[in-house]
């Protein structure tokens, strides 16, 4: 009798556990649905730490607008002088292949950026261009590796890999592991693995705040290069949500003429 009770309890836990772990893709799709907003503007202070401890400060404004489930993002450097007004515009496409343009003020020209250019580091930071795009659930396949405690929460550890060989060619990573909090679907950590499957970078999202309804945001994001020993810390200085930004603000005209 005692034995059957134990078996029953075990089955119950096992079933409950199985039911509590939704499909990884469902988690990521739900994350996007819960955390996405119509539009968002952030002013960021970027501090780039060299291996020898030297620091460089950069100020960036990042503006995003989402329509029909696809986002358009404009990142603009506000300072220092050598990169001021440099901008990157990204249009997310349903097939996972984005359109991306860059504006270099010295050339006064908007230039389209090739896909593999997205692996490049973004303006001397530890972030690659592709790290700055929203998570594309169409461009990746996901699986839940495990659940484990993270800070005071419990996280799903989800592995993301490119969905097709072509997309795998475009990305600089063989896979990523994301730690997604079960309570609010917020990603708090991402490990990036290079093509030889070695840990290349680690992103940590801190000072997580509820900013509106189901929307949570990190006010501090650190990207640490595990190989080079460098790191970049983004601190959010200012954030506005759902202010009705127009589509025209995410155009090549704005990239070139905006400030």
């Amino acid at each position, binding site marked *: 009798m005692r034995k059957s009770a134990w078996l029953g309890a075990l089955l119950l836990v096992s079933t409950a556990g199985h039911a509590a772990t939704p499909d990884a893709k469902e988690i990521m799709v739900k994350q996007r649905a819960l955390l996405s907003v119509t539009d968002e503007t952030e002013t960021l202070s970027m501090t780039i730490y060299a291996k020898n401890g030297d620091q460089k400060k950069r100020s960036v404004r990042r503006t995003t607008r989402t329509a029909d489930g696809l986002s358009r993002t404009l990142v603009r450097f506000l300072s220092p002088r050598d990169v001021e007004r440099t901008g990157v515009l990204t249009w997310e496409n349903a097939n996972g292949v984005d359109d991306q343009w860059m504006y270099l003020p010295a050339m006064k020209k908007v230039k389209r950026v090739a896909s593999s*250019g997205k692996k490049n*580091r973004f303006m001397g930071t530890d972030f690659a261009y592709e790290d700055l795009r929203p998570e594309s659930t169409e461009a990746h396949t996901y699986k839940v590796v495990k659940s484990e405690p993270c800070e005071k929460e419990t996280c799903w550890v989800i592995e993301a890999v490119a969905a097709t060989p072509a997309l795998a060619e*475009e990305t600089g990573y063989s896979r990523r592991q994301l730690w997604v909090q079960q309570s609010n679907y917020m990603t708090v950590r991402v490990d990036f693995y290079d093509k030889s499957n070695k840990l290349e970078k680690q992103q940590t999202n801190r000072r997580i705040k509820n900013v509106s309804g189901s929307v949570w945001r990190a006010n501090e994001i650190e990207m640490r290069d595990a190989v080079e020993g460098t790191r970049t810390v983004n601190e959010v200085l200012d954030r506005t949500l759902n202010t009705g930004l127009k589509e025209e603000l995410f155009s090549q005209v704005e990239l070139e003429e905006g400030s």
Partner: protein
Amino acid sequence: MRFAAEGNVPRHWKRLLVLLWVSAAPGLAHAVSLADLGVKGALTYDVFAHREDVGIDDAVRHELAADLEWEHRFNRRWQISSDLRARIDSDRLVSGFYGSEDEREPHRHSLLLRELELKYRGDDLQFKLGKQTYAWGTADAFNPVDLLNPSDYLDPIAFDDLGIWSASLRGKIGEFDIEGVWSPWFVQSRLPDQTGRWRTAPDLESPFASVPIVAILVDLVPGFFPPPNPVVRTDYPDGGLDQSQFGLRAQTTLAGWDLSGYVYDGYPLVPEVRIDGTNASLIYPHMRVYGAGFSTTWEWLEMHGQAAFTDTSIEPEVAARGDRVDWIVGANATWVPDDPGVVESVITLLEYAHENLLESQPGDSTLPELGSPADAFRDAIAARMQFLLVSETRAAVFTAVDLSGPASALVRFELSRQLNDRWYVAAEVDVFEGPSDEFWGRWEHNDRVRITTRCFF
């Protein structure tokens, strides 16, 4: 006006002034606290060390330039901005404090208003008025659709675009971004000084030094060696409103392709040469140019191209070179190593440019080009390989090969580093190769090293 003609003393004074600027300018900028005045900018100190002296040009030239940018927003819609360059050099490229905007003047002035722009940004429409620069083409080496702004070719391998006084209107019609430009005053490009190291004419003592060439140079460079024959005609289009320039660009993005169309109505930025018997004319035929361009990406490639058809039928009796199509195609490939070490990425550019003359007018001469680098891209390959290294260091090699005759080439090696937020340093080696009567080969004596130091403030 010409220091060289006045002996060496003024040039020593200029060297001294450059040194004073170099030592005092950053401190001065800090003391005045330009940032508090809304002024930003950069101080750039260049040393050009050429292989040898050429005529009255020293082998080494020092140049210091201060770029001052100022911007003021009146409100959400209106803003004004300016870009002023103050420059001094130890040689003859900079002369006089401030002069007319007519770029036929053979030297730069110490003070140049590069841009002055009053901008209105409405929800769907943008209007700009003032001295402006338009960079429409997407190619790196040569853009046949960039026809509005003249350039300063006094140093033809380190040239600057010059702003033009103009009004522009930009807005969206359907899926198209449309920009129209009207410029009431034509300004030609400033050509290399024919008495200096960048002269394009053959050596006067050579058997190729024909009379018409000398005549042309006399007109371009006041004070040049007296001509046996005068230039019989120049028709610089400075007739005011009757000789305005117009430009129109329409562009859109369709299924991953950036597509653009262009129309230009105006005059060539570098005069054409017409030879009738032993007489020569510098002419600026009224022309209309229709262009098209594209840019797209495919996997790791970015591809782009432009074509421009020049219609000279408006003034067929004047046109020297006739109708033609200039085009360029190119590709950028970015390679990011899977296991990055010192090299973070390698960006490779390859472009091919060509000109097809559709008809040849009697005046289409065999004269050497007047010094515009655009002349080097009538049948040419340009290639660039750039290595992005760790710690914001870049190394690059660039080459432009002119294939219009026996091959001649410019090869450039570059190394640059952003030391910190304020300081930038770069070194460049330029090497010319080829026969001495070809575009690049004729400057073989100008092989040089350039060292640049820049301080942002």
